[in-house]
């Protein structure tokens, strides 16, 4: 409602200057027609309205063609003198008012608001509404763009909206400076737009996120809502009214770090499958077992320690304020940036160090000092701010944990590929380390240097019509058969079936001989060309017939057959 009010106000403000301008012109024209003059022959002559208006028009706009059509008498010149001054003043007043209005912050905001609303209305592809464009929001939007997905951003900080405008993204992402807790702003940003598929609340205020979640669930219950929440109580509250996913940055972050330490293979699978397809593949890491040094026992450090002790890894804690953080008795007092404290914590005998304070400069200092004392140390650093990317890269740590990156990856997976999120959860809870290790080496052998694509095949009529009809007719189709290369059936496509979901039951790394049933979902990862070819197989009747060797069903005949099959079945 901001918009129309401002425009009406502006029209109102223009009233006075315009009325003044009309009056000045009317007086000037009237005067010119009333004052007697002489023509070129010296006969008495009076200006008509046409000539008077013509003269005032070019005089008022300071063009000044001269005394037209005949030279003026002194009486006329006297009047023209008056006309010139009053018309110039009237114009200055009108233009000044107009310029002041254009610079009015309310007016400018109304203009940006309006163009944002128009941009959102015109979106025809599915899009996500991202509230909060901090480090995480930025990475999330970037990740969505890399996957060819559209998004709309709301943030209450002008600098962040400026960052979005300067981000140079390949896909246009409309952004508005507005409070996301206000439902009107959410609606402007497309909450009720028919192509809006999800809302991600990433602001650093839990209550704002809560408000966004409630608003979204009430105004558009079908939307997927993903919320960031740092406080467990608020998280539980969000869950109570059906928020689809709640992301706790601290839990998630510590969980990933622990995973990186205890199961490098599942960590690397996580990293690979959640990176943008086509980006370079990260090298796997092998953190050593033994004594560790953990610097910082804050909210983050506590969770890390919990996970580490659960994994049976011993860690000596260094903490500057052990009373406030409630550190254990054997904790070493200090920041960890000094050689003395690190030595005291036994850095020379330790195999690794985790610099987990909330200050990036301190973390880097801990790592550098630690490396000097013990060059073989495995270094893990917590990066708090995205802007410090360059120095963390230069410090050559074994592992950099960046909170916003981890959250953004997790959220992207949740919203773009829920089946992949399920698969990653299943990998986390996989007890057999061997299975995960084998999978990691299979994936790296599959695609070489770049991150593989992940895609889902659904055996429903809408997603894969050819496959659905074959299954409906009672044919047996195995996972292996749809993995056949449609241009040469003696070869398989370079891909791995990761997860098969049948009637709500998950099967991790399904056997390739598994037969498919209607309604199954299969998650694959592999080369991007494999994704395309597999789509041809499941969509095209003849291609499917070629790879399976079954009777081809196509067009009208196939439709009739399926109809008659349906009739006999019922």
């Amino acid at each position, binding site marked *: 409602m901001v918009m*129309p009010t401002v425009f*009406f*106000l*502006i*029209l*109102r*403000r*223009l*009233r006075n200057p*315009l*009325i003044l301008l*009309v*009056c000045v012109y*009317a007086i000037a*024209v*009237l005067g010119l*027609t009333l004052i007697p003059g002489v023509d070129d022959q010296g006969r008495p002559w009076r200006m*008509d*309205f*046409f*000539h008077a208006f013509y003269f005032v028009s070019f005089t008022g706009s300071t063009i000044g063609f001269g005394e037209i059509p005949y030279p003026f008498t002194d009486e006329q010149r006297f009047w023209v003198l008056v006309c010139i001054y009053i018309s110039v003043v009237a114009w200055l007043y009108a233009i000044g008012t107009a310029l002041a209005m254009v610079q009015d912050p309310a007016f400018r905001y109304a203009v940006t608001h309006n163009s944002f609303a128009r941009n959102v209305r015109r979106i025809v592809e599915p899009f996500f509404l991202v509230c909060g464009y901090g480090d995480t929001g930025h990475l999330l939007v970037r990740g969505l763009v890399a996957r060819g997905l559209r998004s709309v951003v709301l943030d209450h900080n002008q600098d962040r909206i400026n960052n979005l405008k300067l981000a140079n993204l390949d896909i246009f992402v409309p952004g508005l400076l507005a409070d996301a807790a206000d439902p009107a702003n959410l609606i402007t940003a497309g909450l009720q737009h028919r192509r809006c598929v999800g809302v991600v609340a990433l602001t650093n205020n839990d209550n704002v996120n809560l408000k966004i979640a409630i608003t979204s669930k009430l105004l558009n219950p079908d939307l997927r809502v993903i919320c960031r929440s740092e406080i467990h109580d608020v998280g539980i509250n969000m869950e109570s009214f059906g928020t689809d996913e709640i992301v706790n940055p601290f839990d998630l972050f510590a969980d990933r770090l622990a995973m990186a330490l205890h199961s490098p293979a599942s960590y690397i699978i996580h990293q690979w499958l959640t990176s943008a397809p086509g980006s370079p593949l990260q090298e796997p890491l092998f953190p050593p077992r033994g004594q560790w040094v953990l610097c910082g026992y804050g909210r983050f450090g506590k969770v890390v320690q919990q996970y580490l002790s659960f994994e049976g890894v011993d860690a000596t804690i260094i903490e500057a304020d052990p009373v406030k953080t409630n550190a254990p008795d054997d904790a070493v007092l200090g920041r960890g940036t000094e050689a003395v404290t690190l030595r005291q914590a036994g850095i020379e005998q330790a195999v690794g160090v985790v610099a987990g304070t909330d200050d990036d400069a301190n973390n880097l200092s801990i790592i550098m000092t630690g490396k000097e004392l013990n060059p073989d140390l495995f270094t893990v650093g917590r990066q708090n701010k995205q802007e410090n990317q360059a120095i963390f890269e230069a410090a050559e740590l074994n592992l950099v944990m960046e909170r916003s990156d981890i959250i953004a990856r997790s959220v992207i997976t949740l919203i773009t590929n829920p089946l992949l999120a399920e698969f990653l959860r299943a990998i986390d809870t996989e007890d057999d380390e061997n299975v995960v290790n084998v999978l990691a080496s299979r994936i790296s052998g599959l695609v070489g240097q770049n991150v593989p694509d992940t895609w889902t095949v659904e055996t429903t009529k809408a997603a894969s019509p050819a496959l659905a009809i074959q299954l409906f007719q009672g044919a047996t189709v195995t996972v292996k058969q749809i993995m056949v290369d449609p241009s040469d059936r003696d070869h398989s496509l370079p891909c791995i079936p990761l997860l098969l979901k049948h009637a709500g039951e998950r099967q991790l790394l399904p056997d390739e001989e598994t037969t498919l049933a209607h309604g199954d979902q299969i998650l694959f990862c592999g080369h991007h060309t494999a994704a395309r070819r597999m789509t041809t197989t499941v969509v095209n009747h003849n291609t499917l017939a070629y790879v399976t060797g079954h009777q081809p069903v196509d067009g009208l005949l196939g439709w009739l057959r399926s109809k008659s099959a349906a009739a006999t079945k019922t």
Partner: protein
Amino acid sequence: MNLEKVIFAFFITLALTLNFGFFIGEIDNPAHHHTYELFAAIIVSVIATIMKFGDRSQLGAVLLAASLVADLQLIAAALLWGAAVNTLDGGLSASTMASIVSLSGGALLANFVSVILLVIETVMSRR
């Protein structure tokens, strides 16, 4: 009493009365229709239009539309007059005068609608 309303009603009514004054008389007789009267009608009509800017109500929108119609007709009449006197051979003929006056007659109707709407608004606001 609201001074703004007084000025507003004054200009709308004045636009109608001036327009009527110009319109009345034999339709093709230039002696019955004075150029200054047309000039005054145009100026007042334009001012009345500007005064209607920025009114958010439905009635305000209709008033603005009616006023714009009146402006358009009157300005067309003035242009025709100016063209007849200055550019056409033979000056102001009876048929041209009839066209000018009939254009102003159209504007009169639009101004009349404005006044009627104003009266309706006033009556409704009494409740």
